[in-house]
């Protein structure tokens, strides 16, 4: 084969000619990422239903003093009374109004759910971001610690820790918050690992941005979706855990009303059999709140699914 003699005077496109800039069309109404997500979320019927129910429960918790007919601690003139026009859901074995206790119980469930998740999302996000961004041995150590925490059956360790620290609303929030982070940490780490490879992060490094700025202002806002979805499901799980703890006597202590400890009385067969008003309403409230939050989580997950986004 002989080497070709290449003619070089012609070009595919004559770049020397000044090509006028194509007019840049005026852009329409700005559409932010948030607006797209919201629109998609509201197309998910169950998610909207969940949002409505959850909002109602939230209002119930905030407005409890206005909604409850009497104090949740006040002892009335009747013990273990069946529902009547005077006491809508009857009274408990001590003689307290169950309807008022049910309303106040929402405060416990929601504060545990939101409080615990807020703590562990913060811990998990920071640890996951550190592991994903710095990699190497930092990542190795954080991920092994995560594995350790994930190996323990959640409810059993919580039972032990709460029993050591003493069962109280505050301690439950702290214990759930300190133990719940591994799931978030794994998710954040995975997102950070993939986002770290994007050119806009490399551009940030080239522009001289500091590591904290890159992590907190450029990487984390882009993994908000998975964090939010996980946190939503986490609130539901924390509400169930608090209810279980209170049911087992290791949660919020009477006389404070919690849906879980209201169900505790039903462990006696006679209550279970003859006084369903004592245990059915709080059970349904737990189910309703958890279900509504899970539906919202599902809607969020679908709305943020990158596969179906644009």
């Amino acid at each position, binding site marked *: *084969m*002989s*080497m*070709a*003699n*290449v*003619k*070089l005077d*012609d*070009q*595919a*496109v004559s*770049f*020397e000619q*000044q*090509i006028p*800039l*194509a007019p*840049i069309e*005026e*852009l329409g109404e*700005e*559409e*932010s*990422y948030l607006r797209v997500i919201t629109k998609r979320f509201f197309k998910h019927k169950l998610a909207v239903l969940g949002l409505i129910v959850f909002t109602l429960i939230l209002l119930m918790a905030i407005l409890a003093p206005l909604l409850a007919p009497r104090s949740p601690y006040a002892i009335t003139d009747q013990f273990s009374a069946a529902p009547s026009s005077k006491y809508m859901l009857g009274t408990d074995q001590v003689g307290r109004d169950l309807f008022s206790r049910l309303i106040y119980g929402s405060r416990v469930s929601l504060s545990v759910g939101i409080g615990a998740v807020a703590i562990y999302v913060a811990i998990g996000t920071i640890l996951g971001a550190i592991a994903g961004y710095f990699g190497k041995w930092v990542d190795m150590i954080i991920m092994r610690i995560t594995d350790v925490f994930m190996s323990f059956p959640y409810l059993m360790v919580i039972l032990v820790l709460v029993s050591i620290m003493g069962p109280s609303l505050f301690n439950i929030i702290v214990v759930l918050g300190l133990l719940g982070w591994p799931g978030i940490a794994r998710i954040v780490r995975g997102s950070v690992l993939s986002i770290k490879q*994007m*050119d*806009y992060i*490399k*551009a*940030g*490094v*080239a*522009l*001289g*941005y*500091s590591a904290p*700025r890159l992590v907190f202002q*450029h990487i984390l*806002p*882009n993994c908000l979706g998975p964090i939010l979805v996980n946190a939503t499901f986490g609130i539901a799980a924390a509400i169930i855990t608090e209810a279980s703890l209170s049911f087992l006597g290791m949660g919020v202590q009477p006389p404070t009303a919690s849906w879980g400890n209201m169900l505790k009385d039903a462990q006696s067969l006679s209550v279970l059999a003859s006084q369903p008003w004592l245990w059915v309403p709080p059970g349904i409230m737990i189910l309703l709140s958890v279900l509504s939050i899970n539906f919202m989580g599902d809607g969020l997950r679908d709305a943020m699914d990158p596969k179906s986004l*644009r």
Partner: protein
Amino acid sequence: MSSTTSLETDRKADAPRQGTPLIEVQNLKKYYPIKKGILSKTVGHVKAVDGLNFSIYPGETISLVGESGCGKSTTGQAIVQLDPPTEGKVIFQGRDLSTLSNTELRQLRPQLQIIFQDPYSSLNPRKRVGDLLAEPLLVHKLADKSEVTRKVDDILEIVGLTKHHRNHYPHEFSGGQRQRIGIARALILNPKLIVCDEPVSALDVSIQAQVLNLLKDLQQKFQLTYLFIAHGLGAVKYISDRIAVMYLGKIVELGTTEEIFKNPRHPYTQILLSAYPVPNPHLRNRNRVVVEGDVPNPANPPKGCSFHTRCPLAQSICREKTPDLMGSGHTVACHFPLA
């Protein structure tokens, strides 16, 4: 390994250029370890960049050209310290960048900017264009709050956008417009050198010309120095002063654009040139040189001249001895350079 070109040869190669270089690349190497086995032992290295020596002079455009996987992008990222080199030095205005502390490096980074190939992954999707462009100014305290908006508007105007685009998100723009935003972001810190990592290869041909024109205008306006990376010679001819042809992590030929196009001396350069399309149909009846075989595995490059497996002119010495980059001004690494 005998592949490392001596610095003397390099100086000679650059002799025709005037003044002191902005950047000196000395024996630059970037190896990626290959890990195998239970304990992840390193069993070898992918030699992405294997001993580069060249200088970049103020105000010029030097292009790195080669097939994908030849190490050109790695070189670009190593020079702006995005992917620190395994070995060798990058000397910027007399300072060896590898010896700088993190803080010193961060203060120096504004002078070394980079434009990426993919305009879709190079802009943070969650930030408005105005914020994307204002952030570098605020981080480096190059403007106070009152000036920032004006500076952002100015730079948008300069790259051919308008101040109305400030409040929009990247996904609302076309590929070409996004690339302009990327250019604006690199430009806003008044850099000395911009590495253009295939800035037009993801764009439509008509848009390519616009962006190249813009880059050329900006170079004159702001006395910029470009390191331009491309895999074809097409885009490069129009914009470059000098061209370095890379093959398997090494420079095989380096010369002015005119020398490379008129008088290519390395067989590989000739092959690249013959792959370059000729629009005039009357001139097409030339002999095309078609390259045979695939690029060898950079983890296990061939002995001797790394191009000998595909070279139509290879002799026995090519399989034994690695050729050094030879010549003055127009340099070539070949035992049998073409006249």
